[in-house]
């Protein structure tokens, strides 16, 4: 099972349940947002420290570029600042921020469509994309894995945007189908089917990689 980095589940409904925090003594995301609307710097810094790593990683993975991801993260939080006083307690703050990020990513993808196609590659000189590689792998094995990763990333880029978005929210952020449906404002069944379609599409696009050495089920690349 893929590792889940954290869920919004506890806070998806009305914000009356404590948001995703580890310490019950800490303020909830909704309380922090109210303070941010009043201009309290400490509350904003706490909110930022809670959500920036998660949202930043999502944006970097969605755009394939740390620089672009950082720019979009800044834009996302600017929108949070501007709309903090208008946030209504009908949903969770986390879902709302993810929705802002998703919209920014969609806009970015639209702009990219009009730009020359560029596949983020592990062979980029800046080494911006890490690969989880076991310590004991041979150079040949590493080379094959890199090529497979490049092919997988390219295959994901070719997926329809709605499938790609659901895949990102699921695999990167570990959100449930219900949470994703809340963020994207679609039925739960739609979120589930889009994820299935994305995975099957990736699998079909990469079926020629069946000659990759079998690693065994105990080998966890996560």
């Amino acid at each position, binding site marked *: 099972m893929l590792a889940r980095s954290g869920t919004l589940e506890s806070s998806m409904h009305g914000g009356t349940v404590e948001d995703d925090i580890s310490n019950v003594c800490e303020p909830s995301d909704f309380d922090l947002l109210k303070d941010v609307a009043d201009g309290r710097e400490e509350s904003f810094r706490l909110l930022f420290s809670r959500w920036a790593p998660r949202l930043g990683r999502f944006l970097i993975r969605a755009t394939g570029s740390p620089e672009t991801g950082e720019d979009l993260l800044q834009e996302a939080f600017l*929108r949070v600042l501007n709309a903090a006083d208008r946030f209504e307690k009908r949903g969770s703050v986390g879902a709302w921020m993810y929705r802002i990020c998703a919209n920014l990513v969609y806009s970015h993808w639209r702009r990219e469509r009009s730009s020359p196609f560029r596949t983020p590659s592990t062979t980029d000189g800046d080494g911006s994309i890490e690969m989880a590689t076991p310590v004991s792998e041979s150079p040949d094995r590493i080379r094959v894995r890199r090529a497979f990763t490049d092919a997988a*990333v390219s295959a994901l880029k070719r997926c329809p945007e709605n499938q790609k978005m659901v895949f990102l929210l699921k695999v990167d952020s570990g959100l449930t189908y219900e949470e994703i449906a809340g963020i994207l404002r679609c039925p739960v069944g739609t979120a589930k089917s889009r994820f299935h379609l994305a995975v099957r599409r990736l699998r079909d696009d990469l079926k020629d990689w069946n000659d990759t050495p079998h690693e065994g089920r105990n080998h966890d690349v996560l």
Partner: protein
Amino acid sequence: MSCEKWREHLIDHLAGELGEEETILLEQHLTECTDCSEEELRLRRVMVAALPTQTWQENKATEEYLVNALHDLDGDNSEEMEFSSSSERSGLADRIARSLGFESFSLGLKRPVPSYLALGLAIVAVAAGFWWGTSNRIDLQGNRSAQPAREIQQEESLSNDGASGLAERHAVGEDSSAASLKSWPSGAGIRFATTPSDAISLARAFMSDTL
């Protein structure tokens, strides 16, 4: 359950969406079926490879920039806030308010009044001024007509000839003021001047009475 059915559950299993009981049964099946085990591994590998490991590096510059933006926003210095998509930030009310030359105004409250409230008050003020102006219309002779605004507007729309139209309004205005004088109760002992000439005649009458 057949392998085909189990494979339908593999994606949900990898996504962590399979129920506890089904997970146990599936795990058991995967230990017994090589084909399904290989399919599960293939799917897992694809899902992981499509999103290589990535971490967000803490960036203090971003945080400080946003903190400054927070203070700017709190000080209502909203011109400094640059947004890549201004349409996302402002709705129709904000855009109209800005076209009128103001973002918001303060009523001495802790936070400025939002633009849409200012816009609403401006619209009410304009409407009230329009209503007052048309219900207290001043004709070219400087006479305040007692005609309701609607009747005046109807006159204007009916008259296409500017000169004759003006003459008509003048005549009507005089008749109306004369009629208004006559309509006051004769025994009231109170007279009001509705035209400058009335005011002069009333003043003369007052002077002659008192003297």
